[in-house]
């Protein structure tokens, strides 16, 4: 929440003219996603493979029920333009439920605007801390991949700009409540221009 407020403040200079007849205030809108993601400066020197590997190494290096510390790349990632989304999947599966189609469509709407075109994005899947870490990592990776696939195929977002990563429970949003629902999320991170 703190971070979101901070990002919103930073993006104030870039705020869009709100679309006329916008959706209800409480509902997620395309422009909210754009406002949080746009304004990336130069490209960030970090690859999706590198990030994926760091999460796997975190489990190998610090085994146990829960990750004792966050990823070494966490600070770097936290400084980037990003947005957290809630997407509902079928239980223990990477199948996106129909109730979340609209959210995936909103991501497509945002990524297809000139404000975000040509920039590279990570689609990062996260779980809560219930269950084994390896399993969570793999499930979140498949789910991130499912979102990417839907964007690239059904909505024709250019695939060369989208990378799926699964961080499982290695990067909890609320480490003091590891099982809380707030930890289950899909995070979009703007990596900038190539």
């Amino acid at each position, binding site marked *: 929440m703190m971070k979101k407020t901070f990002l919103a403040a930073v993006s104030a200079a870039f705020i869009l003219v709100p679309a006329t007849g916008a959706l209800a205030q409480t509902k997620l809108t395309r422009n909210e996603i754009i406002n949080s993601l746009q304004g990336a400066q130069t490209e960030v020197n970090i690859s999706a493979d590198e990030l994926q590997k760091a999460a796997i190494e975190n489990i190998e290096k610090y085994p146990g029920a829960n990750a004792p510390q966050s990823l070494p790349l966490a600070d770097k990632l936290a400084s980037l333009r990003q947005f957290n989304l809630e997407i509902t999947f079928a239980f223990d599966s990477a199948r996106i439920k*129909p109730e979340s189609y609209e959210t995936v469509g909103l991501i497509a709407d945002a990524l297809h*605007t000139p404000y975000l075109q040509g920039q590279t994005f990570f689609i990062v899947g996260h779980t809560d801390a219930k269950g084994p870490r390896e399993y969570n990592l793999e499930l979140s990776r498949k789910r991130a991949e499912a979102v990417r696939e839907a964007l690239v195929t059904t909505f024709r977002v250019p695939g060369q700009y989208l990378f799926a990563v699964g961080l499982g429970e290695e990067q909890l949003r609320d480490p003091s409540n590891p099982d809380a629902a707030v930890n289950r999320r899909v995070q979009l991170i703007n990596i900038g221009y190539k």
Partner: protein
Amino acid sequence: MRRLILALSAGLMIAAVAPAGAQTVGFAEAIKMLSASCGKDIETYCKSATLANNGITQCLEQNQSKVSQKCNADRIVVISLIQERLAAQAAAPKECERDARQYCKGVAPGAGHLLRCLLKAEPSVSKKCNTAIDLAGYR
């Protein structure tokens, strides 16, 4: 209901040369129609299909004898709505090329700078370009 009629009429207007009052809808709006009209059928007949590679719409087509009438009608509309918006977005830069040159001299392309400039210059921008921006959903 009104939205459905609009969507249906938009679907019928494919290939027409941008008739006055034509409009397209966003990807979220289009795909929401699929979950609203076909959500139950998807959970019944397409439990293993995914949104990727048009898996859901293909599955619904394969099961068209079983899915609801409304779903059968709307699944086709949804596909054309997505295609229309994609086409409108692909066309917009070309439709606005002249206006961009005229009203946005020195504006660096990329990161939406040109679009921001064109939106600001709306009263002077040609009808052709303003319509293209509308149809692309860029306003």
